[in-house]
């Protein structure tokens, strides 16, 4: 069977989400691991659950897999209620964090395991196993044992094992955590490509924002058992709703600005210590003048120019540090009234070494309208002072 037929078999009626969670809730003892949570993963797409450890992403995955029963709520896979089905009846594929390849079985036996369990006849099992090993580029390792393979190879075997049964959904639990950086990037690409080719709905659990951004069609950012934001990678990256999301995905300059006044549908804000006219943020709910509002500006959006060339209205800052990072210069900027230094990237377009601002230089700050994002107030954190 070719990859094309794999795809054909796993395609679903349009509009039916590949996975739907409805108000799923789970607590262990007195600890609420998951607040009532709902989200949909469109069929054939890859969705990442992103968050720090203990945020509930693994619990969510284990509930989808059937290892844990939710206290309340529903899990629908391809429109079917699977909430109380045992794992073996859910027809899922899963790659575990440490791969969990059976140590007493060869690579081929590992891959064939799911087919044997489904009582697929021997000839077909062998054929499908061989084809799957071809797909993951490991045909020559069929008779090795897992401990004889490298980390990347084990990863591929785990992937092959999870896909050979043509599952209705693929679960990936931090699948690349154990690999080194280069291999990880390569595998991210490979997995993503395979997933697209097969068109399998996939749920990926990760705490690595880059991985989430590279691989996903959709990112669900979680913290403390609840979803903070869900959306496409660009949406979540460009329009973080809260400080946590903004900081967890990439680097962000978070500035507590003062509301100068309401203008049209937006707000006029002033940087702390800035007496000038401030800047405008569109589409923001009204707030009383004088109150504080958090604004996030990505370092790549922050433009800096030597004070001599800067507009008179631009707020000033001093260069306090500089790092060369290949594709960009990274500047650290200090400005009175800010407790943390600001970060600014300056993309290198010409020969390296051009236009470096020395430490101590005074610069003017500016950004394009629309790149400064007003953040929602954080939900009050449990136990926070």
């Amino acid at each position, binding site marked *: 069977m070719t990859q094309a037929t794999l795809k054909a078999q796993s395609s679903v009626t349009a509009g039916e989400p590949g996975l739907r969670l409805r108000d799923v809730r789970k607590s262990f003892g007195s600890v609420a691991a998951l607040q009532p949570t709902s989200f949909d993963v469109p069929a054939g797409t890859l969705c990442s659950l992103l968050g720090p450890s203990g945020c509930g992403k693994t619990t969510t995955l284990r509930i989808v897999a059937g290892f844990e029963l939710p206290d309340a709520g529903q899990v629908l896979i391809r429109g079917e209620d699977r909430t109380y089905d045992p794992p073996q009846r859910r027809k899922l594929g*899963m790659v575990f964090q440490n791969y*969990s390849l*059976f140590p007493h079985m060869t690579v081929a036996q590992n891959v064939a395991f799911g087919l044997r369990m489904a009582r697929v006849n021997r000839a077909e099992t062998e054929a499908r196993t061989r084809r799957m090993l071809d797909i993951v580029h490991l045909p020559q390792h069929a008779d090795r044992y897992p401990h004889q393979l490298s980390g990347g190879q084990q990863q591929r075997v785990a992937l092959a094992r999870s896909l050979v*049964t043509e599952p209705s959904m693929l679960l990936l639990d931090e699948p690349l955590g154990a690999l080194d950086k280069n291999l990880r990037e390569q595998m991210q690409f490979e997995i993503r490509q395979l997933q697209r080719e097969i068109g399998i709905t996939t749920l990926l659990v990760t705490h690595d924002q880059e991985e989430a951004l590279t691989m996903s069609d959709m990112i669900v950012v979680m913290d403390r058992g609840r979803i903070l934001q869900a959306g496409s990678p660009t949406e979540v990256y460009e329009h973080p709703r809260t400080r946590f999301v903004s900081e967890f995905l990439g680097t962000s300059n978070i500035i507590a600005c003062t509301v100068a006044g309401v203008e049209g549908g937006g707000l006029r804000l002033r940087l702390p210590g800035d007496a000038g006219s401030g800047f405008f943020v569109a589409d923001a709910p009204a707030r009383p003048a004088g109150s504080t509002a958090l604004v996030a500006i990505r370092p790549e959006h922050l433009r800096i120019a030597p004070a001599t060339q800067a507009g008179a209205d631009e707020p000033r800052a001093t260069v306090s540090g500089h790092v060369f990072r290949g594709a960009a210069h990274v500047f650290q900027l200090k400005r009175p009234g800010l407790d943390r230094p600001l970060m600014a990237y300056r993309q290198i377009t010409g020969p390296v070494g051009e236009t470096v601002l020395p430490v101590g230089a005074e610069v003017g700050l500016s950004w394009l309208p629309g790149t400064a994002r007003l953040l929602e107030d954080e939900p009050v954190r449990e136990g926070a002072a």
Partner: protein
Amino acid sequence: MTATASWRRLERRLPILLLLAFVLIFFAFLLAPIVFVVLVSFGDSEIIAFPVTSYSLRWYHRLLEYRPLLDSLWFSLKLAGASAVLAALFGVPAALALARSRSGLADLVSTVLLAPLSIPMILLGIALLYKLSAIGLGISFTSLLIAHTVVSIPYVVRTVVAVYRGIGRNYEEAAAILGASRRQTFTYVTLPLIGSGIFSGMLFAVLISLDNLSLSLFFGSAQTNTLPVVMLSYLQNQFDPAIAAIGTVQMIIALVALLLIERTVGLKFMSSPS
């Protein structure tokens, strides 16, 4: 290679060499008394004496001609094997449940399952003698089997719990998600993975059963004589090397058994990293 390089090489290997030395001393300690037993078994003298002055195989001939020793050895091996199997049938499911249980009952249950280890066997033997006689089992192979199984269960339970805990849940979850039923997961994944635990538990059980004098004593009859009972009563009246010879034969049987296991199943589950 320079002198410093070879010195540094040695330095890196030093801990292993020290460990090896320790292990060799350990086995010297372990085998020292046994060496004398084997030597004495080949002695020519009528009584057990050391040093052995002349050697012969006469005590091995004596074994062939004095049937109770060999008969009871065979009986003891059957009993040890059967009780180890029975203990595994009782103990393995219990151990698997206990290892994964979050229940507060688990500690209590474990304590009960391990308690037979702690009671002097002579007390257990006499208590069982009266109990089993009262229910009509009397002095029989079944009674001996029950008694030996009681004391074998703790070994199986404890080693399997330890090994199963060490394995973690992931393999079984992987099997479940691949569609394996509970039973399939157990047969194809759990059982092979806890093999070393079951093996060592059963090995313990066999060893304890073979050396179990106090418990077997009360169930000894003409048909149900175990080796330790026969050896004890033999030794009480005769201090000749036949006892050393039967001990040596016992060791040879164990060696052959272990070799067979290695040839067929392989002892690799006792050593290779999984």
